């Protein structure tokens, strides 16, 4: 019996065994070098710990919490787009049909995220948070969140941008876990959604300064805008001032802020989405 053979056998039925154990194959090397140093009798315990890490029960509370924050946002997003798809005032004509199709595409992604996160949290030994009872008006900021298509798009944009900022906020907690890659895979999709929604709003002449990317602190009108974009005006990255970096004077503060999307703290997230009664 040889440990490598065990892994090989497992790999035949579970091609992702190495990823489950650790997203880094390098960690396997660490393990082997660790094994050199410990007495043989203690090795089984180490192996068991490694497998538990791969197959559940021992995902840390920080990881479960990070995944559940994501799930809480995705539940709300999925419910919001599902209702919007059937109720929103898309109008008529070819643009209306295309808009509805776009909302359908986004809804399907959010439903995919919900299912993925529920399954993942369960497999990791955690309890997935459930659907909430939402206030789509954002505590009366939007009187008709679905019937007024402009309001619908404004909420959608704030939601997408807040969601992806939240992922950045918890990404560090997921580093070294098998969940980071999936979180980033969803995160990029939210960014694409945001830009699509922004382009829909731009084509309607909604908000004259709106860009396909977050520029400075973007829309500061209203509670949702203020909460969702506070901090996005940052131009300091890893100890560098991006404005005019290395003599590139065309990079003004707007471009410098646009080039990097910023994380949001859990506290700020609670404030922004709490208005919609999303429990985080």
């Amino acid at each position: 019996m040889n440990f490598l053979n065990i892994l090989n056998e497992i790999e035949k039925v579970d091609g992702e065994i190495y990823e489950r154990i650790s997203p880094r194959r390098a960690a396997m090397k660490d393990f082997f070098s660790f094994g050199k140093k410990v007495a043989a009798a203690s090795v089984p315990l180490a192996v068991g710990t490694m497998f538990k890490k791969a197959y559940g029960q021992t995902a840390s509370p920080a990881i479960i919490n990070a995944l559940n924050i994501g799930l809480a946002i995705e539940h709300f997003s999925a419910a919001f787009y599902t209702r919007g798809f059937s109720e929103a005032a898309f109008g008529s004509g070819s643009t209306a049909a295309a808009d509805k199709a776009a909302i359908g595409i986004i809804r399907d992604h959010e439903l995919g995220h919900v299912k993925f996160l529920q399954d993942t949290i369960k497999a990791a030994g955690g309890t997935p948070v459930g659907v909430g009872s939402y206030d789509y008006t954002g505590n009366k900021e939007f009187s008709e969140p679905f019937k007024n298509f402009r309001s619908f798009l404004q909420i959608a944009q704030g939601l997408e941008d807040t969601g992806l900022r939240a992922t950045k906020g918890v990404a560090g907690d997921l580093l070294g876990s098998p969940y980071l890659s999936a979180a980033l895979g969803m995160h990029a999709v939210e960014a694409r959604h945001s830009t699509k929604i922004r382009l829909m709003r731009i084509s309607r002449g909604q908000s004259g300064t709106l860009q396909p990317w977050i520029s400075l602190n973007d829309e500061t009108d209203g509670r949702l805008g203020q909460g969702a974009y506070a901090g996005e005006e940052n131009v300091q990255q890893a100890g560098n001032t991006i404005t005019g970096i290395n003599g590139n004077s065309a990079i003004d503060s707007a471009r410098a802020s646009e080039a990097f999307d910023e994380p949001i703290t859990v506290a700020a997230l609670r404030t922004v989405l709490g208005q919609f009664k999303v429990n985080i």
Partner: protein
Amino acid sequence: MKNIIQEDQDTAQQTERISSSTLPRRSFLQFAGASAVGVALMAAGCSKDKDYVGPTDPIVPGEDKVNLGSGDTGLLNFAYALEQLEAAFYTKVVESPWSGINTTEKEYLIDIQLHEIAHRELLRNVLGDGKIGNLAFDFSKVNFADRASVLEAAKEMEDIGVAAYNGVAPLLKSKDFLTVAAKIVSVEARHAAYIRETIKPNDFTAGVVGSNGQEQPLKPADVLSRVKKYITTEINASNLPTA
């Protein structure tokens, strides 16, 4: 010692059960949960970790080659190489715009160019002495006078850029670098969505998102093979972490 031998036999039986059937998750969990695995570690045979970190020689004199290096430095150099590519591409686009380009398109393409330059310069500064040299590019496959040709190339580069960052970010050791990568990758995704929508409405995620609503990451080697047609400098990525 007797214990270990007994455990060894148990494990052998369980292993046989697992490998002789499709895997019911529950039984695997039982197996995994039973930490009774007697092992003959083959660790002594494992090759030693390379301790190589940064490029020893960013550009080999007389040859057009770079070695990205290993560890986080290597991964950041990989990103730096891609940002060099994107910045050079959009600089060319902005310098020689297709005829009939409209004001909005031009404005947004300048924005994208400057975002890519910002990414490139930040990575350059973060890498410091560990950075690779300036790469050389060949954009002869792109017809800059033709809107469709430019946008198709842009779409390909942005999609690859997103998948590339998503592929290397989980390999980073430093949380600070992960944060930088996460801050950049969503901007690349925004670019990708904008370019795609400019080509064809509602194409913002077409073909890049699976049923779980996620974009698939790409490994550095796959990224490099896809962008090779634009980069004439030979890039050695063999020291990058692979998992």
